[in-house]
C-alpha cells in the first residue's frame, strides 16, 4: 500500500489529478484563475505596503509633511489589492469545492451503476463492507487533493511573482529569499514524507477500532449471554491503545515540524533585516524596499505549505482512486437477448443439464427437471444441497456453467433485460426491504393501485399488522426494514411478489420466520389464488411440500429423484429420511414411551 510520497506515487497522483482536470476543465481553469489572482495580489499587497512606506510614511517622518495625493493613492493600493485578493480567495475556495464534490459525486454514481450492472456472481466475490467503502471513503480519498490543488497552483504563481518582484527590488535580498523558500519547501516535503505513513497507519487503526466496536456491539447479546464483556473490552483496548500510540507518533512529527516551519520564515525575515540594513547603507535599496521584502516573507510563510498539503493527500488519493477504478474496470456483465415471452398464461419452466460452480467447487451437477404450466413443484433437499443456487439460476441471477434454463421454451439468456422480472417473481431466503414505505417496498416501481397492494397484503397475511402500523401503507420501514420483525419482513417480501401476479412464483424458504399457523394460511391462500401461476417452492416443512404437485429431491447438487410426494416417500430413502425426520422421531418415542405417551403418532 502506498503511504509514502515516493516519485511513483507522485506520478500516479498527478495522473489522477489530470483525470479530474480533464473532466472539469472549466471549473478547474476558473479555480486556478481565482487562485492566481490571489497569488498575484498577495505579492502586490506587500508591494503596496512598501510603496506606502516609501512614499507616504518616510516622507512624513523625514520631511514632516504629508502628501495628500500619495496618501490617498497608498490607501487605494492597499485596499484595492486586499479586495482583489479576498475575491481570489473566495473564488478559489468555492470553485475548488465545486470541483472536488463534483468529482466525488461522479465517482459515486459510476461506482453504484457498476454495482447495479455487474452480475450477482461478482457481488458474491466481494465483501459488502469493501463495496461500501469503495463508494464512500475511497471516492472521497481519491479526490481529496482537489481541495488544496488550486491554492497550490496559486502559490506557485505567488512564488514566481515574488521571485520576480524581489529580483527587481534587490538581487541580494532576492538571494536570501531563494535560500529560505526552497528550504521551506524541502522541509515541507520531508515533513509530509515522514507524516504520511504514520497518518495512514493511524487512519487504518481508527477503522479497525471502529470495526471491533461495530462487531462487538452487533454481537452484544452473545457477549452478554456468555459473559464475555472482559474479553471484548480487552480486544477493544488493545486496538485502542495501538491507535493512541499511532496518534502520538503523528503528534511527535507534527510537533517537530510545525514549529520549524513557523520559525524558518521568521529567521528569513530577520536575515532580510540584517542583509537589508547593510544594503540600505550602501544605497542599493530604500526603506520601502526593505519593508516590502520583509512583509513578503511574512505573507508567503503560510501559503507555501499548500504545496505540502497536496503532496500529503496524494498517497491516499492514489489508493482510493485505484480501488474505485478496480470497480469501474470490472467486467463480466450479463448479456441480454431481445426476446420477450409472449404468453400471459402460467409459465412453463424447463431446466436442462444445468451445472454450476463457485470457483473450483461444482455445486450443481447436470440438474434436469421441468415444471409444467400451472403446476406447483417443491425443491427439497438438506442444507447445502444447492437449492438456493438453483433458484438463482431459474430467475437468471447467475448463468449456468453448462446447460440451460428455458422459460416457455425460450432460453432465459435470450430474453431482453427486465422481461424475466415481468413474468417471474422470486421471494429470496434473505429478505431485503428498501428504506421506503410499505407501499413503495411492495410496488417497487410497479404501477400498482392501493387495492392491488391490499389484496397482496391479505394474501401474504400481512394486512393485519400493516393495518396497525401508524401510517398504514405509508409507514416507512426504516433502513433494511429494521422497524419490522423477521416474519413481518418476510410477509412484505411475499406481498411484493404476489402483487405482480407473476406467471411463475418462486419461493426460496420464504416463510421460515413466519409462525407455522400463519404459514399454513399463506400457503392455502396462495394455492387458491395461484390458478394463474406456476409455483416453485423451496421448503422443509411438510405443510409446504404437501401443496406441491411434484417434488424434486436434491442432494449434493444432483437431482436424486422426482415425482409426487407419495411416490418419493416410498421409493427414495434420502427424501423419506429428510421429510419424515420429525414424524419418525415422534413415532420412535411413542414406541419407547408407551406408558407415558398415551396418544399415538402415525407418520404420514
Amino acid at each position: 500500500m502506498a503511504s509514502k510520497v515516493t516519485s511513483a506515487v507522485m506520478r500516479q497522483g498527478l495522473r489522477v489529478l489530470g483525470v479530474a482536470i480533464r473532466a472539469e476543465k472549466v471549473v478547474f481553469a476558473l479555480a486556478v484563475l481565482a487562485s492566481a489572482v490571489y497569488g498575484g495580489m498577495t505579492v502586490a499587497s506587500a508591494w503596496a505596503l512598501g510603496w506606502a512606506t516609501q512614499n507616504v510614511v518616510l516622507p512624513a517622518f523625514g520631511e514632516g509633511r504629508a502628501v495628500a495625493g500619495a496618501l490617498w493613492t497608498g490607501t487605494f493600493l492597499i485596499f484595492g489589492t486586499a479586495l482583489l485578493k479576498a475575491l481570489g480567495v473566495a473564488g478559489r475556495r468555492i470553485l475548488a469545492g465545486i470541483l472536488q464534490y463534483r468529482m466525488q459525486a461522479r465517482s459515486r454514481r459510476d461506482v453504484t451503476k457498476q454495482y447495479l450492472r455487474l452480475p450477482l456472481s461478482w457481488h458474491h466475490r466481494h465483501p459488502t463492507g469493501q463495496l461500501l467503502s469503495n463508494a464512500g471513503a475511497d471516492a472521497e480519498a481519491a479526490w481529496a487533493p482537489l481541495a488544496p490543488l488550486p491554492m497550490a497552483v496559486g502559490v506557485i504563481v505567488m512564488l514566481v511573482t515574488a521571485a520576480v518582484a524581489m529580483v527587481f527590488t534587490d538581487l541580494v535580498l532576492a538571494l536570501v529569499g531563494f535560500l529560505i523558500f526552497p528550504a521551506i519547501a524541502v522541509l515541507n516535503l520531508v515533513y509530509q514524507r515522514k507524516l504520511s505513513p504514520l497518518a495512514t497507519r493511524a487512519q487504518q487503526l481508527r477503522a479497525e477500532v471502529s470495526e471491533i466496536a461495530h462487531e462487538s456491539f452487533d454481537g452484544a447479546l452473545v457477549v452478554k449471554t456468555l459473559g464475555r464483556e472482559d474479553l471484548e473490552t480487552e480486544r477493544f483496548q488493545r486496538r485502542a491503545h495501538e491507535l493512541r500510540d499511532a496518534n502520538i507518533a503523528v503528534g511527535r512529527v507534527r510537533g517537530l515540524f510545525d514549529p520549524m516551519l513557523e520559525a524558518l520564515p521568521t529567521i528569513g525575515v530577520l536575515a532580510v533585516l540584517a542583509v537589508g540594513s547593510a544594503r540600505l547603507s550602501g544605497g542599493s535599496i530604500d526603506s520601502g524596499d526593505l519593508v516590502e521584502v520583509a512583509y513578503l516573507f511574512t505573507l508567503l510563510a503560510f501559503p507555501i505549505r499548500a504545496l505540502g498539503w497536496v503532496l500529503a493527500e496524494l498517497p491516499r488519493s492514489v489508493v482510493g482512486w485505484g480501488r474505485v477504478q478496480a470497480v469501474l474496470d470490472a467486467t463480466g456483465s450479463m448479456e441480454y437477448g431481445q426476446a420477450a415471452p409472449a404468453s400471459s398464461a402460467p409459465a412453463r419452466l424447463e431446466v436442462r443439464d444445468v451445472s454450476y460452480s463457485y470457483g473450483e467447487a461444482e455445486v450443481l451437477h447436470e440438474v434436469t427437471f421441468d415444471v409444467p404450466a400451472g403446476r406447483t413443484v417443491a425443491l427439497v433437499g438438506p442444507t447445502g444441497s444447492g437449492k438456493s443456487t438453483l433458484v438463482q439460476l431459474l430467475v437468471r441471477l447467475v448463468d449456468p456453467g453448462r446447460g440451460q434454463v428455458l422459460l416457455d421454451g425460450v432460453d432465459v439468456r435470450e430474453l431482453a433485460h427486465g422481461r424475466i422480472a415481468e413474468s417471474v417473481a422470486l421471494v429470496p431466503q434473505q429478505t431485503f426491504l428498501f428504506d421506503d414505505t410499505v407501499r413503495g417496498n411492495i410496488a417497487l416501481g410497479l404501477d400498482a393501485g392501493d387495492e392491488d397492494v391490499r389484496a397482496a397484503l391479505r394474501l401474504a397475511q400481512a394486512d393485519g399488522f400493516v393495518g396497525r402500523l401508524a401510517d398504514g401503507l405509508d409507514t416507512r420501514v426504516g433502513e433494511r426494514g429494521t422497524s419490522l420483525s423477521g416474519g413481518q419482513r418476510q410477509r412484505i417480501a411475499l406481498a411484493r411478489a404476489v402483487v405482480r401476479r407473476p406467471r411463475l412464483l418462486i419461493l426460496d424458504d420464504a416463510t421460515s420466520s413466519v409462525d407455522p399457523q400463519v404459514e399454513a394460511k399463506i400457503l392455502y391462500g396462495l394455492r387458491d389464488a395461484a390458478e394463474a401461476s406456476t409455483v416453485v417452492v423451496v421448503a422443509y416443512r411438510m405443510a409446504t411440500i404437501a401443496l406441491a404437485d411434484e417434488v424434486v429431491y436434491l442432494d449434493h447438487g444432483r437431482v436424486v429423484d422426482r415425482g409426487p410426494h407419495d411416490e418419493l416417500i416410498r421409493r427414495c430413502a434420502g427424501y423419506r429420511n429428510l421429510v419424515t425426520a420429525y414424524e419418525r422421531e415422534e413415532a420412535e418415542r411413542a414406541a419407547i414411551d408407551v406408558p407415558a405417551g398415551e396418544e399415538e403418532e402415525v407418520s404420514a
Partner: protein
Amino acid sequence: MTAEVIRGNSERSALATIRQGLSLTPEFRKGLVVTLLLAVVATIGKIIVPIAVQQTIDTGLRTGTPDTAYITGAILVCAGAVLLTAAAGYVMNVRLYKATESSLATLRVRGFRHVHDLSVLTQNTERRGALVSRVTNDIDQISTFMQWGGLMIIVAFGQLFVATVLMFVYSWQLTLLVWLCFIPLMIALPRFQKLLSRAYTAVRERTGDMLAAISESVVGATVIRAYASERRTAERVDQAVDANRRAQTRAQTIVGFVFPLTEIVAAVAIAGIVLMGVRLGLSGDISQGELVAFLFLITLFVSPLQTATEVLNEAQNAVAGWRRVLGVIDTPPDVADPGDRGVELPRGPISVAFEDVHFSYPGGVPVLREVTLEIPPRSRVAVVGETGSGKTTFAKLLTRLMDPGAGRVTVDGHDLRRIRFSSLRERIVMVPQDGFLFDGTLEENIRYGKPSATTGEIRLAMTELGLTDWLEGLPGGLDTAVGQRGESLSAGERQLVALARAYLADPDLLLLDEATSAVDPATEVRLARALEGVTRGRTAISIAHRLSTAENADEVLVFDGGRLVQRGHHSELVGRPGVYADLHASWISAAHS
C-alpha cells in the same frame, strides 16, 4: 419497568460537560499548566518579527548610516528567541498529544465497556451505528479539537493579547483603531459559525442518506436483479449523491465567503493605520519604526480570525462529542452486576423459580403477567405459545438480560439480582435464535464459549453434538472462515455454531430460544437427540417451535397473552381443551395436511 435511555443530547451545559469531561480524564489534567505555559512561550515567538522591524528602523537606521553592530546584535537576540520559542512549541505539542491521546484512549475503552454493561433494552434504544460513534467518531472529534482547535483558541488569545500589549506600548490611538476595525467582525463570527454549523449538519445528514442509499444497491443486489429495479435504485442513489454534493458545496460556499472577510478588514485597518499613523507621526506621537511594526502586527490578527469559524465549529462538535460520550458513561446500567457484593453460586444442577413476575417494555402494555412457576433441577422444560405470548420475555428474564417490573426470579433460591454476573453467566447460558458469529474461523467462534478450550475439546464437543459429519463437509473444517457476522455460512449453519459455542461453555442451565429453527429437519432431529444426551443431569429449557420438543419435555409451560396458562406433561395437556390442545392441533395439521 422502564429502560434507561442513553443520555447525551443537550441536557448538560457546555461548561458542565467540559468540567465533567476533564474530571474523567486525569491523564489530561496532569501537567496541563506546564503545557499551557509552553504554549504561551511559543506564542511570544510571533511578536519577534514586529519588534525586530521596529528596532531596525528606529534604532539601527535612525541616523543616515546604519548602526550595523546594533542591528546584528538585535537580530541575533531575536534569532535566539525564535529558536527558543520553536523548542517550546515542540515540547508543548508532544506533551499535548501524549496527554490528550492517553486520556481519550482511557475514555474510549471506558465507554466501550459501559455500552456492554448497559442492559439489552438500553442498548436497543439506539441504533448500533450510533453506539459505535460514541466510542469512535465522538472521541475523535474531541481529540481533533484538543490538538488543533483548542490549541488554536489558546494561541489565538495569546497572539491577540501579546500583539495588543505591544501595540499599546507603541501607540494607544492606533491600537484603538485596530480594535475598532476588528470588533464588528468578532461580533459577526459566531453568527457565521451558526450558519456554518447548520450547513455542516446538513452535510452529515445527507452523507448518511447517501451511504444508506448506496448500501441498498449492494445489500439488496439479489432483490434488485430479481425485480429488475436497477433503474429505480440508480435514480434513488443519484438523488442522494446529488443532495449530498449540493449540501457540501453550500457549506464550502459559506466558508469561501466568510474566510476572506478578515483580509478585507485587515486591509481597512492597515489603510487606517497609514492614514492616522502619518498624522500621529507628524505630531511626534509615534516613530516610523513603530508605525511599520504596526503593519506587521496586524497580520497576527488575521489568522486567528480566519480560522475562528472553523475553530468555533470544532469546539461545538467537541462539546457535542463530550456530551455523547459522557452520556453513555453516565447512563446507569439498569440491569446491574452486584459484583463482589453478589452471591457466587456453586456448580451443580440448577433450580429456577418465578414469583409473581410482571414485565412490560417501556411505555408498552404488559407482556408478562403474574407468572409464578418453579423448575426443579435437572428437568427438561419446553416453553410453547404463539408469537407475542411472552416466551422470549420469559427467557430474557430468566437469563437476567432484563429485570422484572414486579415480582422476582430466583435461581437456587437466590434472587437473580443478587447473583454475581461472572457466576450467573457461567452457569446459565442462553442460545438466541439469531446465531451471531464473529468474523474469524469456526474454531475461534466455538472457543468463544470457553476461551481456554483446546482444539481437542472443541472437536470432542462437536462429536458429542453429532456435528462431525457437517464439520467434515466444510471446505476448511474447523478453520473455515465464517465471514462478517458469520454471513459466509447459512442461517442454519450459524445456529449450529452458536449451539456448539454455548455447549462448550458447559453451563448448568442451557436455554435454547428456537435455537435450531433454521436447521434442516434431519439435522435438527439428530441435534435434539444429541442435546438430550449431553444435557442429562443439567437443567434444559427450550423455547419450542415444533411438537417433538414439547412431547419430549418433562414439563411444558404454555404461555398465552403474557400469562402462564397451562403447565404439565404433554400427555396431560393434550387431552384437555385449552391453548396447548389448539396449538397441538395446528402443529399436527401443518405437519400432515
